[in-house]
């Protein structure tokens, strides 16, 4: 499938809008190629490539709306899809919170599309896998990994004259390497918009080294420890907090940002003053789509500024009810970090636990953002600035809010799972029990 250009996409959208008899109509046109290759036990297990070009039309009569989708693009099919969405809208119950569609908008430019990634083919996918499998085999270890790449575009238009277009690419890789005796396990990963930056050998080397050195783990008592969270682990917990920054739930009294007695905690210093977290669709490391599903522009938003709750996300409806402009939830976030590396953090630690990643993290209490989960694939004891030995995995019960109040130090932010996150050194991190899992 070819990625449709802005002009080609607009032509189709305008044609579909031309068929509309509704009070308002909006059209979303998306096209995507995804490819993947999965391996386990040092052999490729599955591999696939899929293509999809799809158009979705929403028709509105008063406050009633209906949507239909079509993936055939002849005139008759497109018109049929419009009529179907109108039929569905007429039958739908009224949405009392419906707001009229927005008109034309201006968008920032995001540079998330790279030809290198768009051109990945099955042979290159196989090479990515081979680059990982061969060293694992040669070291008599066992690898299981997964690579997924995609290239696509999204275009939006509505009967009020709004039009938005964005194209993007991505490639994600992760590998878990286990020792033959089952006593060691290590993890490595990488995710980029540009596949030229992807080197599966590097991630595999990290995973192999962690697997080998995690054999013979010693048991530590559960309790409160100083931890160094690698960016993958830290990012997971922080992303839960960023996803919970909806203003409506806070106003309604059911969020960690609700204030006792009513109101929200906006303007309060909730985290360590070194914590600044923002989102920006034009960021060079994590470029993102610069508009929302309704076509509203996404811009740079500071969520926490020096530990203070600066902004919360407001849907169009909730923003209007509060008399402010909407603030939209981001696709990715950037946490400002320090200048040093992970190794520097380790070097500066007298006693602590290094955590590679977390697993099966689930909420316990939405009021305190308390989460539970486990460490996995490389947990080590640090003493006097050096990794001394592996330790058995722990279960944690911790809140990112509490964690970011117990911040000791930060390293340089790196990209992990679509966010920019620094490695973090945290004191009094709560491990509640031990796990025998390797």
């Amino acid at each position, binding site marked *: 499938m070819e990625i449709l250009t802005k002009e080609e996409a607009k032509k189709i959208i305008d044609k579909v809008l031309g068929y509309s008899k509704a009070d308002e109509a909006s059209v979303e046109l998306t096209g995507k190629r995804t490819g993947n290759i999965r391996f*386990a*036990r040092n*052999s490729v297990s*599955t*591999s*696939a490539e*899929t293509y999809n070009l799809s158009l*979705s039309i929403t028709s509105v009569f008063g406050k009633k709306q*209906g949507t*239909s*989708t*079509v*993936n055939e693009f002849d005139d008759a099919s497109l018109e049929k899809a419009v009529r*179907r969405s109108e039929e569905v809208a007429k*039958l*739908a*119950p009224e*949405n009392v*919170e419906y707001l009229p569609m927005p008109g034309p908008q201006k968008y920032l430019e995001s540079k998330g599309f790279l030809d290198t990634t768009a051109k990945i083919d*099955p042979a290159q996918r*196989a090479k990515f896998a081979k680059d990982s*499998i061969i060293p694992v085999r040669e070291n008599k270890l*066992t690898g*299981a*990994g997964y690579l*997924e790449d995609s290239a696509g575009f999204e275009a939006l238009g509505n009967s009020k004259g709004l039009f938005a277009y964005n194209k993007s690419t991505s490639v994600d890789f992760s590998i*878990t390497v*286990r020792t033959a005796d*089952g006593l060691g396990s290590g993890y490595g990963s990488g995710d980029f918009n540009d596949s030229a930056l992807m080197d599966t050998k590097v991630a595999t080397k990290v995973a192999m080294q962690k697997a080998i050195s995690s054999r013979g783990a010693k048991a530590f008592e559960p309790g409160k420890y100083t931890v160094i969270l690698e960016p993958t682990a830290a990012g997971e917990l922080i992303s839960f907090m960023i996803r919970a920054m909806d203003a409506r739930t806070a106003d*309604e*009294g*059911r969020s960690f940002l*609700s*204030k*006792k*007695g009513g109101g929200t905690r906006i303007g309060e210093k909730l985290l360590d003053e070194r914590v600044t977290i923002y989102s920006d669709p034009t960021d060079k490391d994590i470029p993102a789509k610069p508009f929302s*599903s309704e076509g509203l522009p996404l811009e740079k938003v500071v969520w926490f500024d020096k530990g203070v709750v600066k902004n919360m996300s407001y849907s169009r409806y909730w923003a209007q009810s509060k008399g402010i402009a909407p603030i939209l939830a981001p696709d990715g976030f950037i946490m400002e970090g320090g200048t040093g590396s992970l190794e520097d953090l380790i070097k500066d630690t007298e006693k602590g636990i290094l955590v590679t990643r977390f*697993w*099966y*993290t*689930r*909420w*316990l*209490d*939405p*009021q*305190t953002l*308390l989460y*539970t989960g*486990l460490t*996995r694939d490389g947990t080590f004891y640090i003493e006097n600035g050096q990794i001394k030995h592996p330790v058995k995995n722990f*279960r944690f*019960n911790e*809140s990112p809010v509490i964690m970011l109040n117990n911040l000791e130090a930060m390293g340089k932010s790196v990209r992990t799972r679509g966010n920019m996150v620094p490695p973090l050194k945290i004191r009094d991190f709560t491990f*509640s*029990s031990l*796990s*025998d*899992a*390797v």
Partner: protein
Amino acid sequence: MNRRKFVQLSGMGAALFSSGMVQGRIISAEDLMMPGIDVTAKKRLADVALNAAKSKGATYADVRIGRYLRQYFFTKEMRVENIVNSESYGLGIRVIANGTWGFCATNDLSVDSIAKCAATAVAIAKANSEMQEEPVILAPQKGVGIQTWKTPITKNAFTIPVKEKIDLLMKVNGEAIKNGATFVNSNLFFINEQKYFASTDGSYIDQDVHRMWPTFTVTAVDKKAGKFKTRDALSAPIGMGYEYLDGLASEKMSILGKPTVYRFSYDMVEDAILAAHQAQEKLTAKTVVAGKYDMILDPSNLGLTIHESVGHPLELDRVLGYEANLAGTSFATMEKWESKTFEYGSKIVNFVADKTQPNSMAAVGYDDEGVPCKNWNLIKDGILVNYQATRDQVHLLGEKESQGCSFADSWDSIQFQRMPNVSLQPGKEKYGVADMIKDTEKGIYILGRGSSSIDQQRYNFQFSGQLFYEVKNGEIVGMLDNAAYQSNSQEFWNSCAKICDKDDYRLFGTLFDGKGQPGQSSAVSHGCSTSRFNGVNVINTGRKI
């Protein structure tokens, strides 16, 4: 609607979700009742695929023609947030060539497209065989000829008018608010899988599978105290039609005048009223004192523990390492099974895998490799005796036929090993929940599914719930809050001291169980009776920020 929006609308957080919940094109409710293509046309298309694969060098091929219909309702307070009707239709071809699997799928069901897709599947198999260390060994499966199977339902949910379903949810939400809820989200999920399978073994199987799940979350807020508490529905996702919502009195069970629980008929309005009262009660419930307790676990809670600590660890692909990069491996390793002495649980613990269980969500006539469904023991008198396997794994267990555990969530997904219904067998002697509470000195009685987490080899777990009742000297003395139980799977099942009899047996289920890379979703049920586990560690999850 993207996945993030779906999860937000459903108001159900991150529990047991996969990416496969909303797939396909959006259609009208009326289109959900349109028949798919005729079975003779499916056979013709299937033969095109099988012949094309063979002509390109496949030594085995199977084809699945799938039509997947979904209708989901999302409501919040007295408004409908969304109704999603979707249809996904297409064909997937799986082949073995050069001893390696290959797969291709298409939604273009023209003869040329199908032949091309079959050729691609063979080409992928041949390309991947370069990195193959061991050839695929497939257990023999005699062709079953032309067969049909249908979930035994009395009311097809898609024939119930949309208005009737909205009226039900508005009644649920209205009654919850009238009875003290500050907020309420309610949902209905209906799924129909029309699956046609054919293989070079000589099977042509047409199946019509129905599943559904009514659920809600009620929230009570005390703004003055800055507190809020929720209570989720005590329904089960189930392999039934709309008749599950009849709310038959004969299928309700009142436990010592406290909560009401439901067997094969659910009263959604009644449960919402109870939930509204109980969410308020939770606001002032006593915080639990951490320590060891005897845990009395209702099937609505124990079902999830079974799913995580027995269902997943006994998936043979996990045991072998195929899921190592994401879901992990398993503590239930092959040598433990080979020893025939591994004490997975106490002597009263018996687990059966059963893909024929009535009203269960994994019940079908044949799996996605054309293997007739059956039941078998997984844990017998506490000893690990078997796993869950597919045709290409079962030789490792020394068995000559597959256990029928293959499933794909869509025509364009590759089928792989998925969990059958895994259920704890009830106790043999007459013994009810009242007897169990009477026999407990210091315990906690838990109902409903709460937060869950387990490690990547399924040793250490932590589960919470919806309702916690303190049991002292044989009586329920009040409600508790902030409780979660932690254990190790083997220790936990060995602490199983008592299981209620068959009169208390009920199903738990998950409609969206995620597994694999890329992720796939499947539905499965877990049956059990209320059970007691002695001396389990309970932690207090209350914190302040």
